[in-house]
């Protein structure tokens, strides 16, 4: 579509409300978060060049409630991305294409249960 066409096209109403659409959007967003985290992770580990004590001091920061919360959110992003990824791979193999919504909720139950275990460990550090 040309820029002129894009201005007049019925774009606003086109945001389809299907589950697959939101699963995909969240998949992309969680993927971007994980790529962003990778750079943070590499930077943190690279601080080890300064020495063991310096690295340990840095690690102590991660006991701060806000960072523990972020870490829990990181686990949530990993779980979502990994388990929805399994669903996508299954669809690519031709499994569960017509049942993709059911499969989505099934893997989300697994994700939620796993996240609950992590949250059980992390919550005392947050509150």
């Amino acid at each position: 579509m040309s820029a002129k066409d894009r201005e007049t096209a019925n774009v606003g109403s086109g945001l389809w409300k299907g589950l697959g659409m939101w699963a995909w959007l969240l998949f992309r967003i969680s993927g971007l978060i994980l790529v962003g985290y990778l750079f943070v992770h590499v930077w943190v580990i690279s601080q080890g060049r300064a020495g063991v004590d310096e690295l340990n001091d840095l690690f102590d920061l991660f006991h701060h409630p806000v960072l523990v919360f972020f870490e829990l959110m990181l686990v949530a992003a990993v779980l979502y991305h990994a388990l929805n990824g399994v669903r996508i791979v299954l669809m690519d193999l031709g499994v569960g294409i017509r049942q993709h919504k059911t499969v989505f909720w099934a893997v989300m139950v697994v994700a939620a249960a796993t996240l609950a275990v992590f949250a059980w460990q992390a919550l005392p550090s947050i509150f």
Partner: protein
Amino acid sequence: MSDITFHVKRFDPAVDKAPYYQDFVVPVEGSMTVLEALFDIQEKQDGSLAFRYCCRSSICGSCAMYINGRYRLACQTNVAHMGVPRVTVEPLPHVPLVRDLVWDMEDFFVKYEAIKPWLIRNSALPDTEITQSPAERLKLNMPIDCILCAACYSSCPSVWTEENYLGPAALLKAYRFEVDSRDEAGRERMPSWDNERGVYRCHTIANCSEACPKELNPTEGIQWLKGSAVRRRLLGRKK
């Protein structure tokens, strides 16, 4: 009989700078469809209202529109069944508008033609018809019902973001011929869909299957094509 308000998106590029909505009150009776309501508006209230239609029996695919937030065929949408006093009628989303509810299908059909949507035969034609077993015919049941209304095409985020992507309708048609036991194309059709503008641009979002007014499943066809490409290229299979 009850009065229903039709909230219709209007746009005439010769006059309007931007699209706008116009309300029309139509007395709806019996099993009146949205398409019939549009006829009523055109005949009695505003002759300039433009929309596309042909068969009026949901087999030509001309009147696909975005009606009350869903992809529907205007001719098979019974107004009374919707059970609402106000019906919003918009053109299909994310496609270039020509005027009012009519959009430019040029790109859609260029992409459709790109996948060679016909039976390719290399062997000599037999004197009688080319027979198929019931099991072979069964494979065509889903894709053969496509009426090229482009609801799937308009609903696909991969189409929105990549203008060269063939889209679900063309790929479903490619599936329809690749899976046909009478087709002898071999790899002839493959270059059109076995690339980044073809099946690999599909991110299995499945909006197309949600949107399809004929309740077909283009995602399933596209996934079969992906698998078929692997089977042919890596395992040397025929399909």
